[in-house]
């Protein structure tokens, strides 16, 4: 299963090579051309396979999905052999305690522990943990021993396996980096289709640190239309005092179409394209309710003279945590909706 | 059974001063048991012998209630107090205390009265006295909260439901029990509210093979309650865990199987604060399989503890069912 391999591949922002190799292998035979650009984006072209039905329809369509995941980076060595670290991307500190991690290219196993509860006073336990007291422990007994196994700047991923939780109903699965390996897997699948326009697929880098890969990919490709595929915030979860707040998206209610997020106001015609396609094909869908998060579309729509852009997402519970949960049904429906919408796009967008 | 409950809950009996409650139970049990004795710590031990071949079972329901003890009488006759057990401070202001001899006093606090006190040190009681000399109470006197029994629809409210309702259930089970292979020791225990002390020594003396405490538990069914699955009116609760002990898995199974056999409603209980007599019974000698049958109760340790009458009746049926058959899990 490509999604499992993708989820378990290690690719923190700035170090996406392993994910890229996996994806290149997966799409190699369906594309005409590919290149890896200066930021490490994997740019693929699948040329039009049929004549354009509508000469006014887009000729160059760009779909992106980001390869990078949030993680940690080694920032120093302590005398006792433990490693200092910084966060790469938006991770909630409170998620870091008591976790297993893998460090660097050699995937050296390590753990992040915390002060034993026995040594924490009554008032201490009411506060958030003091992260300056944490470090990555790889079992090295000294600074020198650690430096033999790990280098400054080594990237660190969570040690989390992908697993289907249930084959029934919503077909939920857990794993790390589902934001945005779900998008990568959908995009790989979309490349199998044949379209009346040149389809550019960009597997982008550094989304989690500022939408940076998409920005340069958009510039090079200069598309007529752009769509970002994402794993997105899903807050259909218990709230304090049972407050009735927007869930943003809900697990199992289908792919989410964004009107906007924190980085972009989506092109209204593309929003309609997706929702109409879903209605026509009987694919369940939902709208993303709330402007939270940023996506590659935020960079794409501002490229050169501007590009009509939209976002299609798979709801992802516990996004940016060491382990997230998605519905494979949502994932499949997102892939279906994407393909159907691309076909419909061959007819062009309304003026 | 309501008359029995009323009599028990209205009786005076803070920890260590359970005499009045013991007298009521002893009178009710007289003639219905094979042996009745009071041990050194004041536990009332009522043995109902079995027909043989069964287990030696200890049932424990505590007679004591939370209360107050006078620690000082000031120049104007106000009395300062200490607690016996975990008094819910916020419920004290403006309520009344009753002493063993029937003396009544008003409870208040020196802070902004109606806001409730911060600590017990800020509370005092007013007996109507104007000086230590004319005070009807003296240092060391013990009081319970004064509040009568009421019926609110299908629910019963009073002080000291914790654990007179357990006493009532155990006593009623004793009265309702017919033939049983088991020797059942009904222990009406003392000093639970200060550390389950009565049950500890009773268990050592009795050496039971199996023990079940009958006590109240909290519920999660009031506005903005902490998450807890127990509700009033959904049947007796079978304890899995509380802050002091883990119920023996076998005893839990035995209780559940009996409830299912008798088609009685029941709920499973995980309580995050508080414990019961089973806590000290469990580690008596070389270990005793112990569990707890809980009666769901709202507003525990306040002057208005509330139970559901059907839960009470079903608790009796469950207990009788458990005790009347061979124990198995």
């Amino acid at each position, binding site marked *: 299963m490509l999604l499992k391999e993708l989820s378990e591949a290690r690719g923190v922002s700035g170090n996406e090579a392993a994910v890229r190799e996996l994806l290149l292998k997966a799409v190699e035979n369906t594309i005409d051309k590919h290149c890896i650009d200066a930021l490490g984006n994997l740019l693929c072209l699948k040329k039009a396979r049929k004549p354009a039905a509508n000469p006014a329809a887009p000729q160059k369509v760009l779909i992106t999905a980001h390869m990078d995941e949030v993680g940690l980076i080694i920032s120093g060595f302590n005398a006792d052999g*433990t490693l200092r670290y910084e966060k790469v991307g938006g991770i909630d500190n409170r998620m870091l305690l008591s976790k297993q991690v893998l460090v660097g290219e050699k995937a050296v196993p390590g753990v992040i522990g915390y002060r034993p509860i026995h040594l924490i006073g009554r008032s201490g336990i009411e506060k958030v943990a003091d992260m300056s007291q944490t470090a990555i422990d790889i079992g090295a007994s000294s600074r020198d021993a650690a430096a033999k196994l790990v280098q400054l700047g080594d990237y660190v991923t969570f040690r989390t396996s992908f697993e289907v939780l249930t084959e029934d109903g919503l077909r939920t699965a857990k794993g790390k980096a589902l934001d945005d390996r779900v998008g990568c897997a959908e995009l790989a699948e979309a490349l199998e289709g044949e379209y009346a326009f040149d389809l550019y697929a960009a597997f982008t880098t550094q989304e989690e640190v500022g939408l940076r890969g998409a920005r340069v990919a958009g510039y090079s490709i200069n598309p007529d239309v752009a769509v970002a595929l994402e794993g997105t915030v899903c807050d259909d979860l218990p709230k304090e005092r049972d407050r009735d707040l927007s869930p943003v998206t809900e697990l199992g209610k289908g792919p989410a179409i964004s009107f906007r997020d924190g980085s972009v106001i989506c092109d209204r015609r593309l929003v309609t394209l997706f929702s109409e396609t879903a209605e026509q094909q009987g694919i369940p869908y939902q709208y993303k309710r709330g402007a939270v998060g940023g996506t590659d579309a935020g960079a794409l729509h501002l490229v050169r003279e501007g590009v009509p852009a939209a976002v299609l997402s798979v709801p992802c519970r516990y996004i940016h*945590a060491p382990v997230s949960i998605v519905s494979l049904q949502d994932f499949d429906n997102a892939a279906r909706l994407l393909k159907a919408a691309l076909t419909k796009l061959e007819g062009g967008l309304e003026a | 059974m309501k008359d029995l409950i009323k009599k028990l809950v209205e009786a005076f009996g803070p920890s260590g001063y359970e005499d009045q409650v013991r007298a009521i139970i002893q009178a009710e049990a007289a003639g219905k048991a094979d042996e009745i004795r009071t041990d050194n710590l004041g536990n009332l031990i009522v043995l109902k012998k079995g027909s043989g071949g069964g287990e030696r079972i200890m049932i424990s329901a505590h007679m004591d209630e939370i209360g107050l003890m006078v620690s000082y009488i000031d120049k104007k006759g106000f009395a300062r107090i200490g607690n016996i057990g975990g008094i819910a401070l916020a419920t004290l202001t403006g309520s009344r205390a009753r002493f063993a001899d029937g003396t009544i006093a008003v409870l208040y606090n020196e802070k902004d009265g109606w806001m409730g006190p911060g600590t017990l040190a800020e509370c005092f009681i007013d007996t109507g006295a104007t000086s230590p000399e004319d005070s009807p109470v003296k240092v060391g006197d013990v009081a319970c909260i004064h509040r009568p029994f009421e019926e609110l629809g299908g629910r019963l409210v009073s002080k000291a439901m914790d654990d007179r309702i357990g006493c009532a259930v155990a006593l009623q089970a004793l009265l309702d029990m017919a033939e049983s292979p088991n020797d059942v020791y009904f222990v009406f225990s003392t000093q639970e509210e200060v550390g389950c002390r009565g049950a500890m020594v009773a268990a050592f003396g009795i050496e039971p093979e199996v023990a079940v405490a009958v006590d109240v538990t909290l519920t999660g069914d009031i506005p903005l309650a902490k998450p807890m699955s127990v509700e009033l009116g959904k049947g007796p609760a079978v304890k899995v865990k509380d802050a002091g002990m883990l119920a023996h898995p076998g005893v839990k199974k035995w209780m559940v199987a009996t409830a299912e056999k008798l088609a009685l409603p029941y709920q499973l209980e995980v309580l995050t604060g508080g414990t019961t007599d089973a806590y000290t019974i469990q580690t008596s000698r070389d270990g005793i399989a112990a569990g707890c049958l809980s009666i769901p109760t709202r507003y525990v340790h306040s002057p208005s503890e509330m139970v559901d009458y059907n839960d009470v009746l079903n608790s009796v049926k469950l207990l009788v069912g458990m005790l009347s058959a061979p124990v198995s899990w």
Partner: protein
Amino acid sequence: MDTVALLRKLSQASGISGYEGEVRDIVRQAIEPFADEFRTDTLGNLIATRRGTEPVSTGHSIMLAAHMDEIGLIVKDIKDGFPRVTDVGGIDYRTLLGQEVIVHGQRDLPGVIGSRPPHVLSAADYEKPVPWDMLFIDTGLPQETVTQLVHIGDLVTLRREFLELSEGYVSGKTFDDRAGVASLAVCLELLASMKHSWDVYAVSTIQEETGLKGATVAAFGLNPDIGIAVDVGFGAQPGVSENESIKMNAGPALAIGPNVHPRMQARLSATADKFEIPLQKEVIPGGSGTDGWAIQVARSGIPTAVLSIPLRYMHTSVETMHIKDIERTGRLMALFISGLDDAFANELGLEGGKGAA
């Protein structure tokens, strides 16, 4: 004995306080060849007896205790298909976010302890921990299925693979106190090739984490002449100062304080010296929080010692230790036992063998 393999097996087994059955089976299997009798008492302690053999059993006995139970979670409520939990034993709830768990319902269900996404939280939210009452488990199953498969009181264990780090360090859940249990196994295996005249009760205790219950009743039942509790101690780690901790990979720590009989302490210390086993000292001014605290006051009182195996990140799911410290602890106990004689019994003022009665 392959200590790593045994610890791996013990660590990955589920055995929350009160429900230690799976661990008990593993322990029994591991030490089967080295004990004469096995017994499980009312509360579930596994008591392995190895009779003194050389020249004949004196009837004196020693009880070794290490606890099988682990800290964990228990379902206290189920709301909207999300089980809510509380802890069994002391868990720092702040270490639970983002953890994978197994809900032991009608069948074992994998799950995740999630929390609301950072994108919808305010800066102030990050400044306070997610409280117990807001911790929930997501099994990825629909509400109806959860209601069917999960009941109040079901146990939830942390799901954590055993991990070998560098230099002989290992990491996993519940080394507290499966490491101690492993050290008992090491000790018994060594004793099988040694001479000893005292009877040995190796007790894998239950419910230590919920109040030393197993050791309390086992010590009452066995009434041994002396006792040693093996538990884990706070190993030096980031965020813990030197005077709060013992050194890693430097042997067990022998407690000094009211919980330990001075002659037991002296004898263990001398044994370590004689056989050049690294041994640290740890001052414990009051309750040791170990089975030893209960054993010491069983019946008429029992001369007791407490050994702590250094462990980092205690009560998290990434407890970390050096495998050699387990072996050293087992070896120290075996050599101590093999040296027990009438002279030591006299030193302690023991009359005859209580165990013989």
